[in-house]
C-alpha cells in the first residue's frame, strides 16, 4: 500500500512538474583575440579577480577582462608555455619548455618583471616534442608536472641539458619510438614545497593533460601511438609504470639495461592499465587537458565529472568515474560535438561564472587556433548522467526521466566490446570486436535509471554502448547516444 502511494505521488509530482524548455543546453561563443596574435593557446586559467590569463605558443602571456573585453600583455618571450598555475592576480607559475617559471609583477605596473626559475631539474635534448604539462597542485601544495617523451620524429641536439642515458631509446638513432635519453622524459614528476623535483610515476608517451581532483587523486591523459593502443586516462600513483618503456631507465636503481629490449610480457606485467580508454576514431584521437566540474551546478548537471578536450574534432568528452574494488574505472561520452566548437581543443578552464573556456591549438598537427567558451543555457540536457557497472551488466542513469516503452526495449541498447593491444607498434586495431546482447532491461520508478543485464561480461574490455531513439519524458532526444565503459575490474561478490 505504501509502495503504491509512493509510486502515485512520484507520478503526480512528475505530472505536475513543468516540461523543461526545449533547445540546446549548451552554446559555444567565440572570444575575440587581439590582432597580430597567433592565437595558438598553450595555457588558460582564471585569476582571482575574474580575468582570464592565457599563454600562447610565441611566448606571450596575456590577460583578458571578460567584462571590458580588453587584452593586456603580462609577460613575453617564453618558450612554448603549456600550463599556468595561478598564485595571485599578479603572480603565476608558467610551465614552459625549459623550466617552470614564476612570473610576478613586483612593482604593480601590471606587467611581470620577475621571471624566476622555480624548477629546471629535468633534462631537455632540444627535441621538439619535449613538451611539459602542468603544474597541477594538490591540497598540500605539491605540484605535479608531466614531461613528454622525446619524439622519434625529431632529434637530440648536440648540446643537451641533463645526464644522457642512451638506453632510454630504441636503436642507435632513436628514430623508431618515442624515447627518454635525459631525466625524466616520459615521467610525471612531483615538485615538493622544498623546491625538489622528484620522479613520481613513469611510462607516459605524450601526456597532454594533467589534473588533480578534490581528493588529491592525480589523473593524466595520454595520446595514442607507440605503446598506447588508443588514447587513455590514467589514475597516476607513485612508483607505478603506465606503459611507455623509455623512461624506465630513470627508475631509481634501474639495472635492466635498455627497457625496449625487455620481453613484452615483462613490460605488460609491470604496467598499470588506464582507468578509461578513449577508443580511437570513435571517442577521441588526441585527448588533452581534463578539468573537473566543481562549478556547483553553474555548468549544468554534471558536477564532479571530468571534461576532456579533443584536438582532432570539435568535441569535448565527458568522463564518468566510479570505484570498483577500490580502483577507478569508468565511462566516456561525447559531451559536446560541433555547435560551432572548433578543433584543437587543447586547454580547458572553468570561469568563475561556470562557463567552460576552451583554448585551441594545432602546433603542426590537426587543430585550430583561438579561444571559445561553452555556456550552459539553463535548458536541461537529456544525457546519460552516469554509467555504472553491476554484477551482470550496467546501470545507466539519465539526467531526465525517459519514455518507458523505448527505455524497456533491449534493442535500444547496442553493445559491442573490444580491447586494444599493448605493443611497440603505433596504435592498435580493435581486438575481438563482438556484439553483446542485452538479456534484460529494468526501468526504475522515477524512469531515470535503467539496469541492463548483458549476455556476457568480461574484464579487460571496453564496452561500447550505442543508444537507440531514447527520448525524455517530454520527447527530447538524447544528446549523445555513445558511451564507452572500460571494464578493468568486475564486481567481486
Amino acid at each position: 500500500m505504501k509502495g503504491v502511494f509512493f509510486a502515485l505521488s512520484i507520478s503526480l509530482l512528475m505530472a505536475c512538474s513543468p516540461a523543461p524548455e526545449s533547445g540546446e543546453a549548451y552554446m559555444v561563443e567565440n572570444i575575440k583575440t587581439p590582432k597580430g596574435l597567433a592565437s595558438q593557446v598553450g595555457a588558460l586559467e582564471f585569476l582571482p579577480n575574474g580575468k582570464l590569463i592565457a599563454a600562447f605558443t610565441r611566448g606571450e602571456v596575456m590577460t583578458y577582462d571578460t567584462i571590458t573585453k580588453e587584452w593586456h600583455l603580462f609577460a613575453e618571450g617564453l618558450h612554448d608555455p603549456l600550463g599556468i598555475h595561478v598564485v595571485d592576480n599578479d603572480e603565476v607559475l608558467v610551465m614552459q619548455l625549459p623550466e617552470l617559471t614564476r612570473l610576478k609583477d613586483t612593482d604593480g605596473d601590471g606587467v611581470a618583471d620577475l621571471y624566476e626559475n622555480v624548477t629546471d631539474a629535468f633534462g631537455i635534448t632540444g627535441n621538439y616534442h619535449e613538451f611539459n604539462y602542468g603544474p597541477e597542485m594538490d591540497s598540500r601544495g605539491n605540484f605535479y608536472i608531466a614531461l613528454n617523451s622525446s619524439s622519434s620524429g625529431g632529434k637530440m641536439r648536440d648540446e643537451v641539458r641533463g645526464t644522457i642515458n642512451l638506453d632510454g631509446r630504441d636503436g642507435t638513432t632513436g628514430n623508431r619510438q618515442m624515447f627518454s635519453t635525459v631525466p625524466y622524459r616520459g615521467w610525471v614528476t612531483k615538485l615538493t614545497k622544498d623546491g625538489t623535483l622528484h620522479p613520481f610515476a613513469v611510462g607516459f608517451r605524450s601526456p597532454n593533460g594533467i589534473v588533480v581532483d578534490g581528493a588529491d587523486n592525480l589523473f593524466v591523459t595520454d595520446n595514442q601511438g607507440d605503446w598506447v593502443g588508443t588514447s587513455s586516462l590514467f589514475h597516476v600513483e607513485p612508483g607505478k609504470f603506465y606503459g611507455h618503456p623509455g623512461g624506465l631507465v630513470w627508475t631509481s636503481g634501474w639495472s635492466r639495461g635498455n627497457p625496449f629490449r625487455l620481453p613484452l610480457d615483462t613490460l605488460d606485467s609491470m604496467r598499470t592499465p588506464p582507468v578509461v580508454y578513449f577508443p580511437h576514431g570513435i571517442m577521441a584521437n588526441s585527448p588533452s587537458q581534463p578539468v573537473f566540474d566543481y562549478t556547483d551546478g553553474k555548468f549544468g548537471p554534471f558536477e564532479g565529472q571530468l571534461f576532456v578536450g579533443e584536438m582532432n574534432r570539435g568535441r569535448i568528452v565527458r568522463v564518468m568515474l566510479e570505484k570498483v574494488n577500490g580502483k577507478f574505472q569508468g565511462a566516456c561520452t561525447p559531451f559536446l560535438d560541433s555547435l560551432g566548437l572548433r578543433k584543437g581543443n587543447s586547454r580547458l578552464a572553468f570561469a568563475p561564472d561556470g562557463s567552460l573556456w576552451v583554448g585551441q591549438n594545432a602546433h603542426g598537427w590537426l587543430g585550430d587556433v583561438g579561444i571559445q567558451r561553452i555556456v550552459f543555457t539553463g535548458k536541461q540536457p537529456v544525457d546519460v548522467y552516469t554509467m555504472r557497472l553491476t554484477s551482470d551488466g550496467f546501470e545507466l542513469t539519465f539526467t531526465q526521466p525517459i519514455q518507458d516503452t523505448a527505455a524497456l526495449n533491449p534493442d535500444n541498447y547496442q553493445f559491442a566490446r573490444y580491447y586494444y593491444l599493448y605493443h611497440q607498434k603505433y596504435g592498435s586495431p580493435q581486438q575481438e570486436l563482438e556484439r553483446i546482447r542485452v538479456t534484460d532491461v529494468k526501468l526504475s520508478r522515477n524512469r531515470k535509471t535503467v539496469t541492463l543485464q548483458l549476455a556476457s561480461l568480461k574484464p579487460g574490455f571496453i564496452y561500447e554502448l550505442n543508444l537507440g531513439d531514447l527520448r525524455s519524458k517530454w520527447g527530447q532526444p538524447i544528446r549523445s547516444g555513445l558511451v564507452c565503459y572500460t571494464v578493468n575490474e568486475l564486481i567481486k561478490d
Partner: protein
Amino acid sequence: MRQIQVVMRTSVKRLGVAAWFTLAIGTSVFSQTDSTTTIKMGVLPGLQFSVVRFTVKPGDQVKLLLDNTDDMSHNLLIVKPGTREKVVALANNLGEAGPAAGYIPETRDVLWAIPVTAPEESRTLVFKAPNEEGVYPYVCTYPGHGTMMFGAMYVSVSGEMPQLAEDLNIPESRRDGKTDESAGHLGHANEKPVMLHPYTPVPPYHYRVFIAGASPAAIAVALPHNVSYCWDAGTSTLRFAWMGGFLDNADLWKGKGDAESKIVGEVFFRSKIDFPIQIGNKAPVRIAYKGYRMKDRYLEFHYQVDGTDVYELIRETTDGKGIERNFRIPDAPTRVTFRSSPYEGVMYIASKGVWKHHVLQLTANEARAFTLTLTKTEKQ
C-alpha cells in the same frame, strides 16, 4: 608540353629536412603502353600529401608507394571524379564503425584504397589507371583529415594540368607551389607586414628559443642599436653576441617546432670559457640558474656560484659596437676572478680589478659591482 611527373625523395629520414625534387621528364623517356608510372608519396607535417598532383595516361599501370613520413596514421583513397567531399562525408558518418572499416566507406565512388598506415609504415598500391580521362581525387579519410589532406590524379592522354595557382583540385595552401608546413596555422603568410605579436616589440626584448651554439635552455635578447646576445640558462653563461639584427623565428614557430631560431646579423663574440667566474681559490662546483628580472626592460640574470648570488645585467654600449656586462656579487665572501680568452672576438675593458693573463682579479669589495665592456675587435 607533354610530361610525366616523377617525384623522387633523396632522403629517407623521417621528418628530417627531406628534400623533394620534381623532375619533369619528356614522355619519350617512358613508353606509354607497357611502363609503370611510380609515384612515391610521403606525408608532410600539417596534413599534406607530399605529392599534391600527378598525371598518368588512361590505362597506365600505376604504382603508388605511400611512405608515412608523418607522426599520425593516414590512409589514401582514390575516388571517382567529383566525389571527394561526398566520400569524406561518408567516412565521417561511419562513426564508431570507422576504425574497423579503416575509415573507408562502402561506396562505388572509392576506386582504390590504401588502408590505414601507421607512422613509419609503407604500403604500395598497384592499379591500372582508368580508361576514362578525368581528375581523380585522392584523399585521406582518417577522422578530421579529409578536408585538408588531398590531391589530384590527372588521367589524360595529353598529360596537361592547369597552372598550379589555378588548380582547384588541390588544397589552396599548395597552389603557390610550396609545401606549407604551417598550412592554416600561422595566419596568412602573404600578409605584409607580418605581425609576429599583438604589439611591436621594441628592444630590449627576449625570446627563449632553440638556437645553435647554446643549450636548449637558451635566452636570446634584442638590444637597441641592433645588438643581440644569447645568454644560456642551461649553463648560466653568456654564449655569444651578434650585430646587425636579431632572430628569424619563422622555422621555429611553424609546424611542430622541430627547428632552430636563426641568427640575423653577424656574431662578434663567442665565449670560449666554460664558466668564467670563480669565487675564491676553488673552481666552481655548483652553478644554479635562478631566473631574471626586468630592469627598464633590460634582463638582469641571477645565478648562484656554489651558493653565492651573482647578478648580471647586459646592455649595448652607447656606440653600438659591443655590450656591457654589469655584474653584482653583493655577498662575495672573498676575492673573485673572471676568466676570458683572447679568441672570443672582443676586447675586454673592466671597470675594476686587475687583468693577469686574460684573467680579471677582483677583491671581494670590487666584485660587489663591476662592469665588463666587450667591444668587437676590428679586423686587421
